[in-house]
Every structure is written in structure tokens, then in C-alpha cells.
């Protein structure tokens, strides 16, 4: 009875196929377990992020209740004795050094990636990629040491006096050459983010189809023109992604920056001047922070760093979206 009713509903092929799916008893259960496991993993990351933000907020709450948010964000005085906490000098140091690192490292990484993918013979590629991996593997404290003992004296004695002589009319290059400061921190960060940005850019450029290069070359493009016309536009969203990852690393880098930035809470237009950064002040002061207000202020700086990173990421996503839909926009 029931079989005849089934055959009336389902075509014969389907009827044969259906029982097999549920045929092995354990399969459905395993499938459910598997998806439950994946959901748990996915949820875990949300929980971890949520817990961190929430507990930071909790620790920061004494300060955030006592100080107006605007005063905290735009204040330039940091005086734990008198419980005055302004974050602007640290925010400034973080943003300036990270952007400086980006300005130095982005063109170099993109150029290096283009050299590896568009120009160099395959045998040379491994010669380039080995030192990149090496650079990526150096601990940041070692970068800091190198910065302190090699880069800072070099900046103080040679580079900064030279920049002051040649480009000294710009506010960026005014002031006494100290060595320790924004320039040193930015340069160290540039070296540190270079490997990530370069290797991601290389992977992105490898995905550009050969047909795109050939299309440009067949139109009478020189190799550089083919890169400009076909390769870079195709890869631009991915390269932007690589730059953002580098920026993220620069914003959060603590150790190396702390060792070379000079740790002076001051806002100066000159890159020669010493400054301070958000992660550095947290690292320097958390051990001796006394009282809920001081600890709260450091936690609030942590939250601020989090917000800065998020903001840059959002800007980047927006940029990627704008950049990837060039022609359709102009049609609208």
C-alpha cells in the first residue's frame, strides 16, 4: 500500500536514491556532530573577543566614569600622581609611526613582489624568498636591540643631519637629531612589516592570469606597461589587503617600538623628536600601576588601540570595495 503511494509521488530514480542517504545509521549523527563542532569553533572566537573587550571595559570603567571621554581622547597630559589621563600623545605616536612604516614599506614590498613575479627568473625567486622568511622569523625584541645599537646611532649621526640639511625647510625634518624617536620607530616597523606585506603581495600577484599579461603585451605594451595596465589593476584589492595586514601589525607592535621611540609623551611635527605609543605605555607602566584609576587608564588605552585597529580595518574594507568596482560605479 505504502509502496504504491510512494511510487505515485516520487519518480522511480529518486525513490531508489532516497533510502541510501539515510541507509547508514551513523551518518546523520556524525554529520550533526561535525556541524555542532564547527559552530562551536566559530562561536568560540566571538566569545574570546567578547570576553577580552568586556573585561578591558570592566577594568577601564573607574577611569571612564571619572573622566569625560573627550578629555581622555584629546587630553595631552598623562600624570598618574594627580590622576590626569590624556591619551592623545600616545595615539599620535602610534598613528604616526605606523603610517610612516607604511609609507616606507608599502612601495618596497609591492616593488619586491613585482620583481619576484614579473621580472626575476625562477631561480632567483628562492634567493629572495629566503631572507623574507628570515626577516619574518626575527623576534621583535631583537629588532629593538638592533634598532637601539645600529639604527639609532646611524640616524643620529648621519641620516637625520643629512635630512635636516636637505629637507630641513619641512617641519617634518626640523629639530635636533636625537636618533630615538618617530623616525627610528617608523623605520624599524617598516622592516618588520615588510616580509608579511611582500609575501602576501607575491601570492596575490601569482593569481593574476597569464592571459591578462598576454592581453596587454599583444597590444604592444612594454613589460612595465603590461604590469600597469593588466597586472596591478587585477591585483589591487589583494595588495591593499596585504598593506592592511602590515598596518595592523605596525599598530600593535610593542617591544621594538618601545625600545627606539624615546618614550616621551609629546606631540611634535618633527619626525626626529621622541614620542610614545599606545602599546609602549601599556608595557612600560602596567607593572607599577597603582590604584584603580591608573590601571583603568591603561586598560582604556588598550581599548583605544583596539578601536584604532578596527577603524583602520574598516577604512581599508571600504577602500577595497570602492576600488574593486571601478567601472560599474561610473556607469551608474
Amino acid at each position, binding site marked *: 500500500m505504502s509502496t504504491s503511494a510512494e511510487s505515485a509521488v516520487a519518480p522511480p530514480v529518486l525513490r531508489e536514491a532516497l533510502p541510501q542517504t539515510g541507509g547508514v545509521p551513523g551518518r546523520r549523527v556524525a554529520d550533526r556532530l561535525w556541524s555542532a563542532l564547527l559552530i562551536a569553533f566559530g562561536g568560540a572566537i566571538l566569545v574570546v573577543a567578547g570576553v577580552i573587550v568586556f573585561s578591558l571595559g570592566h577594568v577601564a570603567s573607574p577611569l571612564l566614569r571619572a573622566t569625560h571621554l573627550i578629555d581622555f581622547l584629546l587630553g595631552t597630559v598623562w600624570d598618574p600622581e594627580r590622576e590626569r589621563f590624556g591619551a592623545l600623545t600616545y595615539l599620535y605616536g602610534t598613528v604616526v609611526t605606523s603610517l610612516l612604516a607604511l609609507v616606507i614599506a608599502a612601495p618596497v614590498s609591492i616593488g619586491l613582489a613585482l620583481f619576484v613575479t614579473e621580472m626575476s627568473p625562477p631561480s632567483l625567486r628562492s634567493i629572495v624568498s629566503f631572507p623574507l622568511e628570515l626577516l619574518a622569523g626575527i623576534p621583535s625584541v631583537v629588532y629593538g636591540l638592533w634598532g637601539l645599537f645600529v639604527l639609532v646611532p646611524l640616524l643620529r649621526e648621519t641620516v637625520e643631519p643629512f635630512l635636516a640639511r636637505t629637507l630641513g625647510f619641512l617641519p617634518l625634518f626640523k629639530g635636533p637629531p636625537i636618533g630615538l624617536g618617530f623616525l627610528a620607530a617608523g623605520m624599524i616597523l617598516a622592516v618588520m612589516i615588510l616580509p608579511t606585506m611582500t609575501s602576501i603581495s607575491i601570492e596575490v600577484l601569482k593569481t593574476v592570469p597569464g592571459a591578462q599579461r598576454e*592581453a596587454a603585451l599583444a597590444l604592444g605594451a612594454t613589460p612595465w606597461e603590461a604590469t600597469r595596465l593588466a597586472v596591478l589593476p587585477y591585483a589591487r584589492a589583494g595588495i591593499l589587503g596585504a598593506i592592511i595586514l602590515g598596518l595592523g601589525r605596525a599598530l600593535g607592535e610593542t617591544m621594538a617600538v618601545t625600545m627606539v621611540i624615546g618614550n616621551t609623551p609629546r606631540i611634535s611635527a618633527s619626525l626626529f623628536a621622541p614620542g610614545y605609543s599606545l602599546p609602549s605605555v601599556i608595557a612600560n607602566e602596567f607593572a607599577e600601576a597603582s590604584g584603580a584609576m591608573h590601571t583603568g587608564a591603561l586598560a582604556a588605552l588598550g581599548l583605544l588601540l583596539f578601536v584604532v585597529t578596527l577603524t583602520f580595518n574598516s577604512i581599508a574594507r571600504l577602500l577595497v570595495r570602492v576600488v574593486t568596482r571601478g567601472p560599474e560605479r561610473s556607469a551608474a
Partner: protein
Amino acid sequence: MISAPPPVASSGPHPAPAASDTARPKIEAIDLSAWYGTTHVLRNVSLSVPANTVLAIIGPSGCGKSTFVRCLNRMHELVPGARQSGQLRIDGEDLLSRKVDPVDLRRRVGMVFQRPNPFPTLSIFDNVIAGFKLNGIRGDHAAVVEKSLRRAALWDEVKDRLHASALSLSGGQQQRLCIARALAIEPEVLLMDEPASALDPIATAKIEELIHELKQVLTVVIVTHNMQQAARASDRTAFFYMGELIEHGDTEQIFTNPREPRTEDYVTGKFG
């Protein structure tokens, strides 16, 4: 060439000089060989193509037909380890000579590829004008775009959305866009490497129709897997097999009365 001799041909030592003048080859390959590394992919090919005609190159996969057309605009040498020997002439000028800059050559010898490859980030308009801008030619961009799109039989379909993305077009339209892009720089020769193999029959028919019109102004070399396409679209046909040119001649003769048994087997579908 081999078909019925003209009635007056036997009258002198220089048969029909006027005819050979008009049939002066646009493209001439003499003893052309090509390698990828140690693989010898093209063996001593000698072949000529008269101006304003369509040459179809047929043959099974791996027979060297793509390599042959890629030698004609010197794209072959871009592959690491690739090299070539022999002579290749356009209007009598040796293309393989060191004096010829491949970048200049590719402006004169355009190419359309197997799969449509428009620049995905550019609009239809900018795709067509890309090569034109590249070569620093001065001129009215809008007029060039319209002319090229008309010649590629695409104008009516896209004239209202020239600034839309090239990827908004169908596959057949994208391929005609690539043809328009190649035509915009006014090449003397157009190479087409299986231009319709990724397209449906209607789009294919449009491309073939287009080839007929294009030969008024330029010389076309088309590689194809499709025997009917070769028969329909070309004036002359060359059959390649295992890197050798087995036979070439008028398309009608190749398909109806081939001299070589291998050609006959291939065009009648016995192998390949």
C-alpha cells in the same frame, strides 16, 4: 595554386607576373622552427599568406599551430626557455631580426586569444582604447572606440553602456570586445588563436561573419579546431601535424581534394 592552370600560363618563362604581384605575400615563413626548452614544437615550416586573405590553420592538439601564430607576433619568446629559428617576414621585413622591437611589432600584428580576456577593472570604452592610449597615438578617443566597436560588430549592443564593466558582457560579446580592442590600434595582421572555442554557435557565427569583413582591411590568420569553421571562414588552409606543415593551399582544395593522405584523414575526421 595547384588547381587548374590558367590557359595562357605556358606562353612565357615568367608565368603571370601581374598575378604574382597582387599575390605578394603579406606574411612569409621560411624554414621556421620553434622550441620550448628541448621540445621541438615547430619543424621547418615554410608558408606564405597573401595580403587581405584569411589563412586557417588546422591540426590536432599539440601540432604546433598555436606556436606558429605566437611566433608571428613574437609572443612565443615570452615563455621561459622558448626559442625559434628560421625567417619570418611581414612585407619582406624579417621579424626575428634583432633590429625589430617586439613591442613595435605587436602594434602591427594584433592578437585575439582563445578565451576572452578583457581587462576586468576597465569599462568597455577603456578596454577598447587601452592599446590606443598605450601606443601614444593622438586622436579622438570616442571616434576610435565607435569605429572599432562597429568593425567588431558590437557597437549596437553596447553603445548605451560604454562605461559599464567589460565583465557585464556575455562571453561572445567579450570576445568581440577583445577583437575591437585589437582593431583599435589598426593592425595590419590579426592573429586569432581559436577565437570561438569558448563560444556558443550563435556567437561563433558572428565572429566568422566578422572575419569575412575584416579581410577587406587586414590579413587574418586563424587557428581553429573546427573544420567547418576553417572551411567557412578562410581562403587558404594549412594543415599542421606533429610540428610539421603537412600541406597548405586554397581552402577548397584542402577540403575537397587534399594531396596528402594525412590531410584527407584529418579533414574527413578519421583522426584528430
